[in-house]
């Protein structure tokens, strides 16, 4: 139940019609089954969005973005999730683009923004390190200035899609003597530079999406520094704050819940359709109610002209509750899929039964409460906020 303005409703219809015609059926089926998109999928989808003028919903129009409000962006992401279709490229568009727009030099904007938009290059994100996960500011990868270059030495971990990305935006330590948040800079590095090595990490779902990236005295032009030296921590905080519009993942979880119901209606258990089983219905109805409330929470927080501290706290609320509901929905899907849903792909991938990839997707969903700031860290942020602001 959400009263939506006529303009938003019209936009929603427009987006839906676009997705219906432009989203390739075979690709859509793979996403519904719970498979990862491939590089080619992401590139061609980003180009389709771009052609329609929707390649960057969150950028201002002058830089080629759609110039949409928070609410318009949310409607767009909701429709993409429901289709399902990929959102605009997360590293290029959601993360890096806004940083360059706000902190990059005019030259950098002119050089990079069109390439990010058209997926001429794909970026990945180099933040986490072996000893610096939740405690990101303790990162150690060094970048020493030598003339017109930085010499970068160190290691990043959990780097999604580094094995097919062209470039990586990294947090590096440029001042080892400064206090931990203060000596960090934001640097763009070509993955083809000599000295860059990518090592795959196979995750518990048996698939390869994560990597370690090693930098062995990699020479990076100083022109690739974004903004000012030693101000990278501020840029990273800005970047992570921009995830707010998608962090709750309500639409994605709703799509998974609808899929669980569809599969349950096609599954016989104890002599009847599983969708009629009281236990199944109790779980799915409860999830639906909680998603409805979370959706409202998200709209309230987007709409409020709140203080920065409250915005940060709000993002943590959405992250914790959103990932909990997502994981509970993926638990439900695993129960629906049974043993068939626990198969690993063979050499030629998964077989035709649509339930097959749900087990590995379920396993990967366990990461949702770990990445992007573990839920335990979010709760620390929230506790501090509540104590600081309660009279």
């Amino acid at each position: 139940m959400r009263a939506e303005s006529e303009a938003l409703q019209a936009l929603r219809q427009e987006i839906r019609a676009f997705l219906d015609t432009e989203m390739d059926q075979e690709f859509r089926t793979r996403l519904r089954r719970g498979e990862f998109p491939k590089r080619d999928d992401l590139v061609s989808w980003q180009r389709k969005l771009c052609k329609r003028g929707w390649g960057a919903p969150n950028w201002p129009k002058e830089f080629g973005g759609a110039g949409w409000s928070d609410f318009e962006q949310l409607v767009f992401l909701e429709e993409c999730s429901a289709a399902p279709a990929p959102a605009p490229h997360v590293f290029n568009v959601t993360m890096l683009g806004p940083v360059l727009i706000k902190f990059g030099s005019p030259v950098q904007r002119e050089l990079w923004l069109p390439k990010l938009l058209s997926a001429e290059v794909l970026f990945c994100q180099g933040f986490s390190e072996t000893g610096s996960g939740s405690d990101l500011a303790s990162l150690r990868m060094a970048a020493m200035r030598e003339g017109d270059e930085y010499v970068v030495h160190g290691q990043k971990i959990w780097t999604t899609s580094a094995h097919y990305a062209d470039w990586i935006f990294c947090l590096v330590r440029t001042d080892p003597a400064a206090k931990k948040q203060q000596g960090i800079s934001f640097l763009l590095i070509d993955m083809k530079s000599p000295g860059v090595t990518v090592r795959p990490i196979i995750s518990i779902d048996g698939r390869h999406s994560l990597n370690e990236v090693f930098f062995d005295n990699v020479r990076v032009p100083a022109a690739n520094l974004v903004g000012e030296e030693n101000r990278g921590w501020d840029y990273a905080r800005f970047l992570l704050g921009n995830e707010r519009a998608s962090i709750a993942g309500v639409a994605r979880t709703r799509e998974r819940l609808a899929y669980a119901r569809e599969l349950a209606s096609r599954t016989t258990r104890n002599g009847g359709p599983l969708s009629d089983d009281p236990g199944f219905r109790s779980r799915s109805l409860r999830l639906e109610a909680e998603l409805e409330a979370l959706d409202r929470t998200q709209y309230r927080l987007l709409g409020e002209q709140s203080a920065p501290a409250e915005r940060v706290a709000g993002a943590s609320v959405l992250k914790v509750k959103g990932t909990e509901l997502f994981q509970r929905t993926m638990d439900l899907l695993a129960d629906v899929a049974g043993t068939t849903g626990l198969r690993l792909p063979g050499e030629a991938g998964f077989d035709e039964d649509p339930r097959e990839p749900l087990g590995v997707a379920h396993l990967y969903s366990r990461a949702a409460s770990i990445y992007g700031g573990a839920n335990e860290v979010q709760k620390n942020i929230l506790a501090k906020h509540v104590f600081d602001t309660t009279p």
Partner: protein
Amino acid sequence: MTELSREDSASLAEALCKALQEQYAFASGRKLELANGPGQPPAVSALLSGLGLNGLMLPEIHGGFGGGVADLQRVQRELGRALVVAPWFDSMLAAQAVLLAGAPGQQRELLPALVEGNLSIALALDTGTALDGAGQVVTAKQENAVWHLKGTRSSVFHAGSVDQLLVPATTSDGNVGWFLVPAKQAEVRQRAHRLVDGSWTAELAFDGAQGECLGSPEVASQAAASRLIHLLSIAGRCAEALGAAEAALEMTVQYLRTRKQFGQALGDYQALRHRVAEMYIALEQARSSVELAAEAVQAKDPGEARRCSAQAQLVASEAVTWVLQQAIQLHGGMGMTEELAVGHYYRRMLVLNALTGGVPGALANLAQEEASA
């Protein structure tokens, strides 16, 4: 059912634990089995056979130890801890079916072969359903004194690597009998799939496959065998899950002691210490469930047995699944890697949940039990 003495049972579990630590450590033993093909019996089967475990629950006259359900659970707990995926447990259950329902001649032929490790049996139970289809039915028909089976099963564990399949099938007069079917015959078509815990399952199509009936399909012992297999299976799987959760909790505590963030060990954060405490509470509930599941096997009243068994399954499944999810969570990104054992326990638990029906299956059984009481 007899039982081993307390001392014998403890020393057996100790010997098994030691052998698994030495020969089946995660990186040097268990991981290598993940490369096995569907027709290859896991190497760990030889280790179990070498310890004499094939005869664990068989009477001495058939060459066994005369162990009971508690002994079975002690072994299963060690196997859970070591992440063993092998047809041993299926063969144990099948042996009980032979003991209960088999004719004396069948017992003399089959049981010593099982004890010596010359025979392995997989249970072809209905553990999955086809999408858009009804349950899987297998029928048995007798022609010229030979039984022929027709029908499908969608998910039979270890079917590709065992000698025989034990299949419940419906005869033309509506009785359900247990049929022993040689696995490697042309009339048993197999389509193999590897699951997330590394185990191999197969979709089976019986196309007039020849088999022999354990005893005679008309007699009540067939149904008694079904009941016993179900109860033993829950008792054993609960114990296996407990072993997995105990191992994962140990790993988690060790990790929290050494991993530092924000200048202190993770184990010093009260929020994480409380989580560990909650995991410990859940494990105590799981331990009690293991005992309850064993009592269900021995209960005199069948309704009481079903209820007790389903309660144990409900609590153990919920507790262990949650503990294993938390074990991954507290390992952070490392918990998400295939390299660490901790995620493999969760993978195994997902399979155990699918096999037993997990919490939803137990709830459905309990509701049915309550309605019929």
